[in-house]
């Protein structure tokens, strides 16, 4: 970064909002995927959309890459800097601009946290539906970038279903309104493309989200099973009964053990725990909940525990939501994977994961959104044992292969980012990836907006681009490529 550019950025954002000292830059080297690290050349902390725009204009003029960053909770390296880049932190754009209850719209800056939106509207009986586990700290700008989901997206959808309009700085430095508070804007759904584009098409500076009326009632039950396949059968029967629960979550024995060790939710003894939550009008929930309870008992649940009150319900969820962090209680290190399989393929894929765990010798805990087939295997390893970290990464990659083979996806909610871009050819053909690149180039012909994310980088070492091709060594089972 030249001194001239640094000075110009100081002029735009103020000297205290431009970081260049290596010790200051440390925080920005990675997001919540700490094994991928890179130091940016400079970090700017703009305070207004106009400053963001001015910074991007400088980057565009100088062809300097830039990476937008919310609160750094991403799990795929989506905010990973690239060498020589400007990191644009949106943490100071954290104002709630408008709360419009009659129209159920809230306008916020991107640095506002997900949960803050619900906090703002809760007094009126409303809430913001997408609830990623990190909702207390993650930014809405990051949610837009990643199209974040959460435990309740089976019924309520993802960020893309709840954002109606954004203001964004395009990679050429122009400011655009994308989407509309009003329905049916004519033309292609550019907003639908932008949400989930992982910060590669624009830097969002304002977000208008739709809020929902809080459901009249919420009912939660926990069912304990001896086998994961019995729990899986229960899920299939619930769906087949025409019920779309607000959430259907499963935890296996290792995840239960970890959660018990960490937050003592007092789960009954079980191989698998199923959590089902229904919400809606009281008579509907009462009737459907009885059906769910009957299905759980019929499919062999040893215990069915219905949350008697809100405290009980929160205890059940505490156990579920703590499961990730709790893995630290049972394993020195763990790797969180995110993949999706069609719901009906869950038993088959979980069986393969179990076999993989036995073969590799690494414990794999499973905590997942069973309703939509979104798996979060937690691969336990000990980095002090030589080779185990690499083995864990290999195992994590193998699980993605199972997901793709079952007709699923390499990521359900964490994003591709820098972490999984090389798996993209397993899901998409060369033509598909080329089309993605064309779309990206339409926004960012200089390729300076969050480079190195989503799409596999052009191979420089003679590796053939295109769909994943098995190497003879891999075919012989002697090596795997990740």
């Amino acid at each position: 970064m030249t001194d001239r550019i640094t000075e110009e950025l100081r002029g735009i954002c103020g000297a205290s909002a431009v970081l260049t000292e290596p010790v200051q830059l440390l925080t920005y080297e990675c997001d919540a995927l700490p094994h991928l690290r890179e130091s940016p050349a400079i970090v700017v902390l703009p305070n207004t959309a106009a400053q963001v725009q001015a910074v991007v204009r400088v980057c565009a003029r100088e062809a300097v890459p830039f990476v937008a960053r919310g609160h750094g909770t991403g799990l795929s390296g989506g905010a990973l800097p690239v060498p020589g880049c400007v990191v644009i932190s949106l943490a100071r754009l954290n104002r709630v601009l408008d709360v419009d209850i009659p129209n159920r719209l809230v306008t916020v800056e991107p640095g506002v946290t997900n949960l803050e939106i619900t906090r703002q509207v809760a007094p009126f009986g409303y809430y913001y539906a997408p609830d990623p586990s990190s909702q207390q700290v993650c930014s809405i700008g990051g949610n837009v970038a990643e199209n974040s989901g959460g435990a309740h997206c089976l019924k309520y959808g993802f960020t893309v279903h709840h954002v109606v309009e954004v203001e964004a700085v395009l990679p050429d430095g122009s400011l655009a309104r994308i989407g509309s508070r009003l329905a049916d804007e004519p033309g292609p759904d550019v907003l639908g493309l932008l949400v989930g584009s992982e910060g590669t098409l624009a830097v969002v500076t304002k977000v208008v989200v739709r809020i929902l009326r809080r459901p009249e009632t919420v009912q939660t039950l926990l069912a304990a099973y001896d086998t994961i396949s019995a729990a899986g059968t229960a899920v299939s029967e619930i769906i087949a009964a025409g019920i779309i629960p607000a959430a259907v979550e499963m935890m296996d024995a290792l995840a239960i053990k970890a959660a018990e060790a960490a937050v003592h939710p007092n789960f009954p003894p079980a191989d698998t725990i199923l959590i089902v939550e229904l919400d809606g009008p009281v008579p509907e929930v009462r009737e459907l909940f009885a059906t769910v309870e009957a299905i759980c008992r019929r499919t062999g649940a040893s215990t069915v525990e219905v949350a008697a009150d809100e405290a009980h319900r929160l205890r059940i969820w505490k156990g579920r939501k703590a499961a990730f962090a709790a893995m630290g209680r049972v394993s020195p290190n763990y790797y969180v994977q995110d993949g999706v399989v069609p719901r009906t393929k869950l038993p088959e894929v979980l069986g393969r994961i179990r076999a993989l765990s036995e073969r590799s010798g690494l414990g794999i805990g499973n905590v997942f959104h069973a309703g939509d087939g979104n798996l979060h295997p937690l691969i336990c390893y000990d980095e002090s044992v030589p080779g185990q970290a690499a083995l864990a990464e290999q195992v994590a990659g193998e699980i993605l292969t199972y997901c793709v083979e079952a007709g699923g996806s390499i990521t359900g909610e964490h994003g591709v980012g820098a972490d999984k871009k090389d798996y993209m050819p397993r899901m998409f053909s060369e033509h598909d990836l080329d089309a993605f690149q064309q779309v990206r180039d339409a926004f960012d012909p200089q390729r300076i907006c969050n480079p190195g994310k989503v799409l596999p980088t052009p191979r420089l070492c003679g590796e053939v681009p295109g769909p994943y091709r098995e190497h003879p060594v891999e075919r012989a089972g002697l090596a795997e490529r990740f």
Partner: protein
Amino acid sequence: MTVLQQGRAGSAGEAIDGITPQLVAEPTSGEACAAVLAAAAGGRVPTVIRGSGTKSGWGRPLDVVDLVVSTKSLNNLLVHRDGDLTVTVGAGLTLARLNTTLSARGQWLPVDSAFVGATIGGALATNDSGPLRQRFGTPRDLLIGITLALTDGRVVKSGGTVVKNVAGYDLGKLVTGSYGALAAIVDATFKLLPLPHASATLRAVYSDPEPLAADAAAISAGQFEPLAFDVRAADTADGLRWTLLVRFASSPAAVATQLDAARALVHGETTALREGLEARAWSEQVGHAWEGDATVVRCSWLPSRLGEVLALVRTLRAECGVTFTGRVGTGSGLLRLAGEDAAVEGAILRLRLDASPVGHVVVLRGSRALRSQVDVWGAAPSAPAAALKRALDPTGILNAGRGPL
């Protein structure tokens, strides 16, 4: 030119906006479709993609239709994964046929088009919807994967077949509402919903719009979860007749409770509609704007401004015949404007005034003269939309001259 060899002469039944196409190609695969588009792009032949043609008159009028690419033969129901509640269908399959098949398994794709015979591809390309959007959104909200044929001859996929998936760019959402101006839709994958166990509709009729708007606001503020929530202003001999329709679908007990609670809130003359009567009421509501051949204009508004919108409808009636159907919760609706073109044009201009409570005023159906006279779309494409058009259709052949891109 290759494309000439692949096409055949068009017939009157394949007309676009009343004009018989010079050439029609009816590809039977995504690859064949992409090959036709590539040939058309190579020869710079303006091309219109056509499903059943139910909405092919929408857009700016053309004098000549060079090439129509019909999706008629891309009409297979490819895979119904009933246990996963997903389906993959060819673009040329009709919504009605799809839903007939799905209903045998207790499932549906809840998109209620006004057009019998509307295809999946056409519903996506226009992001068409009806009253069910109150609960389920528009086709873009249900779409989870897509296959597209591009003008460079490639067939590409985006999304997948699972309901939760954030890998890659969502080109499916991008092409919804693009009116075939970016690529041809070959097939699409949707998440499905279970058919509701029970359903009932509360109809309330008013002689004035003010109490209707107040009642609509009261229901909106309550903890109801309607399946559909609509308003209508019908032009009758006795003046405008105002109707509010609220449909509840759930378990039988929940439907009854919600219906009673809603009835207690409203002041109009109420009727509870079930089964055949209910189905007929909604079918009338969906088709209301499209009766006859008068001009149909789409517009939207912030839901809190419903009262102002209804007042505007009443004002417009002084200038031309007017009926109105709208979605209370989403703030979107259709105006049918009957009268001389000049009067209708005046009404459209009034709708587009800065002070008007409605926005995104688009002329969907109108005489060729009217559509030549007024700006059909009401807005130029945004800079990103225009850039995407250049990237995906660099020769500008798709829906050329018709918009919105």
